[in-house]
């Protein structure tokens, strides 16, 4: 069945492009949206008899070396959700390139699904490259000068990441004799502790993935790429792409391939804490709405990496929950920034003001988004941060826990500055006639805000439901 996650979008891309009659961009968007909804459904009912029957009838079980565990189902669901949001926002803001946009979103969807499900280091690399190539093109969709620059930076950094990851794979192949996750893991377990050459291989892979995830000090490309990309693409990149390619892969490699190692764990924790702090401090001094969100992403990803570094089951649960929550609140905020940019024509927060009275839904949902990002109860972001901090405390990493806690105050600080400048106060000059964005954008921001509120308030029930469908 896992192959369905790749086959469905692939067939859709082929049909969209090879059909006898040219399919219009609106129809293409609709079909793309259906595929993303289908992905959410499949991840919620994974292993259900419909899918099993479909797999058997269509005989799409010719490739079986996938690795699906409960965490990957959450990730697959999140990929579907954020792609859905991105397609809805793309409906009103990608101009003439809608058709290509839909195709590229489907390709990036396949890439990310592959990254989530593979069980082999080389296949992992192949799917990371698919995601990468599709992202470069998506960022430069409008061929705007800054976007091309941002995309080029991302391309160069990704090439460096590739070198690191391939070198690492070569070392692993030399010693373990295979790149399959379970064989590598058995090889490592046959030693007492992780052998030195594997530590080197893992360090190289971590470096490559840190570039992909935009962790400090490898973050140079990220703010430019995020802020110069078209709005729906920034949602996709910040919400899910860098999280899957960098963070989730790191989690999988750390927990089930290279095995937990105190030294590597500490390195990850330090990387996480530095990202949390530097990302938050850098976000404070920005004037561009999207750049603030980009630096905030670096900071929030730091929390996930910190949790991965701690490595206890509770910490990993926190990491995967924060993965989902971050995707939902950060894409909510990016949707809001897209709405503001579309209606006012600017992203500079110094020239905005008082928009809450003109765009009540955007203003209201963005408050939900930032409170959730800052970890204020009862929103969803609170629970995942709480779990991560408790896990850090249990692992006797008191200073890390304290810094992670205090960094939440920094998060509130930069988001309050953003809110005050954009949505509160007097309406800025020239913005008196601004109206709310179109129904699609309003709809997805309400949907995402609702996810944040419902998951937050009903967390125990949501948690039980997640357990019942095998996600946790």
């Amino acid at each position: 069945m896992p192959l369905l996650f790749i086959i469905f979008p692939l067939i859709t891309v082929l049909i969209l492009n090879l059909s006898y009659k040219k399919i219009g961009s609106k129809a293409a968007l609709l079909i793309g949206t259906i595929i993303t909804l289908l992905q959410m459904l499949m991840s919620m009912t994974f292993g259900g008899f419909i899918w099993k029957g479909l797999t058997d009838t269509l005989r799409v079980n010719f490739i079986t070396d996938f690795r699906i565990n409960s965490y990957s189902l959450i990730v697959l669901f999140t990929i579907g959700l954020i792609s859905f949001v991105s397609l809805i926002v793309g409906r009103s803001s990608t101009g003439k390139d809608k058709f290509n946009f839909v195709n590229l979103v489907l390709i990036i969807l396949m890439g990310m699904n592959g990254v989530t499900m593979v069980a082999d280091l080389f296949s992992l690399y192949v799917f990371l490259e698919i995601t990468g190539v599709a992202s470069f093109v998506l960022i430069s969709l409008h061929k705007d000068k800054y976007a091309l620059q941002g995309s080029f930076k991302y391309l160069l950094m990704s090439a460096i990441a590739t070198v690191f990851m391939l070198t690492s794979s070569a070392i692993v192949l030399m010693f373990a004799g295979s790149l399959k996750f379970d064989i590598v893991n058995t090889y490592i377990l046959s030693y007492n502790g992780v052998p030195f050459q594997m530590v080197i291989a893992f360090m190289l892979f971590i470096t490559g993935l840190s570039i992909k995830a935009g962790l400090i000090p490898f973050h140079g490309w990220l703010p430019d790429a995020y802020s110069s990309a078209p709005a729906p693409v920034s949602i996709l990149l910040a919400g899910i792409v860098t999280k899957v390619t960098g963070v989730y892969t790191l989690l999988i490699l750390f927990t089930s391939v290279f095995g937990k190692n105190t030294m590597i764990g500490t390195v990850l924790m330090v990387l996480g804490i530095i990202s949390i702090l530097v990302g938050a401090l850098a976000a404070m001094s920005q004037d561009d709405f999207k750049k603030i969100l980009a630096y905030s992403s670096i900071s929030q990803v730091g929390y996930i990496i910190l949790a991965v570094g701690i490595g206890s089951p509770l910490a990993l649960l926190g990491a995967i929950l924060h993965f989902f929550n971050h995707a939902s609140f950060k894409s909510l905020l990016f949707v809001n920034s897209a709405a503001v940019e579309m209606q006012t024509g600017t992203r500079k927060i110094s020239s905005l003001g008082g928009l809450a009275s003109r765009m009540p839904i955007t203003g209201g949902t963005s408050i939900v988004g930032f409170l959730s990002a800052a970890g204020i109860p009862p929103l969803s972001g609170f629970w995942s941060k709480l779990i991560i901090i408790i896990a850090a405390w249990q692992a006797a990493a008191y200073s890390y826990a304290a810094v992670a806690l205090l960094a939440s105050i920094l998060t509130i600080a930069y988001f309050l500055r953003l809110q005050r400048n954009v949505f509160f106060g007097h309406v800025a000059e020239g913005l008196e006639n601004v109206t709310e964005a179109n129904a699609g954008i309003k709809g997805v921001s309400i949907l995402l805000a609702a996810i944040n509120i419902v998951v937050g308030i009903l967390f125990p029930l949501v948690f039980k439901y997640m357990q019942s469908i095998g996600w946790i």
Partner: protein
Amino acid sequence: MDLSSFNSDFVVFLLLLLSLIISSLCAVMIRNLLKAAIALASTSAILTIVMFILNSPWAAVFELSVCAGLITVVLISAISLTGEKPSEEIVILRKKRLQRFMILPLILVVVAALLWISWPYLSNWVPKIVSSEVTFQEALWNIRQLDILGQIIIILAGVFGIVVLFKEREVK
């Protein structure tokens, strides 16, 4: 290092590796794009020989046909479509370029020195010979199916890249 291993084969191999490094440095540092593309092609050609000596004929064939052949053709045809820059600009660019790449040979020397120093420790790492019991066909079509699927998707991504980035020029 044991001196007895210095037979003629080993010397040839060392020379090949050295020329590999030199030609790849040339590919990065030469200002003339055409010459740089040719240097890149010769890097691939030398790499092909190295792979062949290392008993990887299939990898060697692909390296030769794709990297040395196809990519060079694409690069050279792309270069022949672009124009030259004015000469004053070239002088400025040349200075900047050289400053930027001066560090490269230095890095190489440092890495080589580090390897030389740590050789006694590294030589204990006996790499496993990856089993070559499976045939090429089996490896490609039975073991690496997923990667072939991945390759189809990556080609699709490349196609859309070209469509998105170059379409407008066609219309003009």
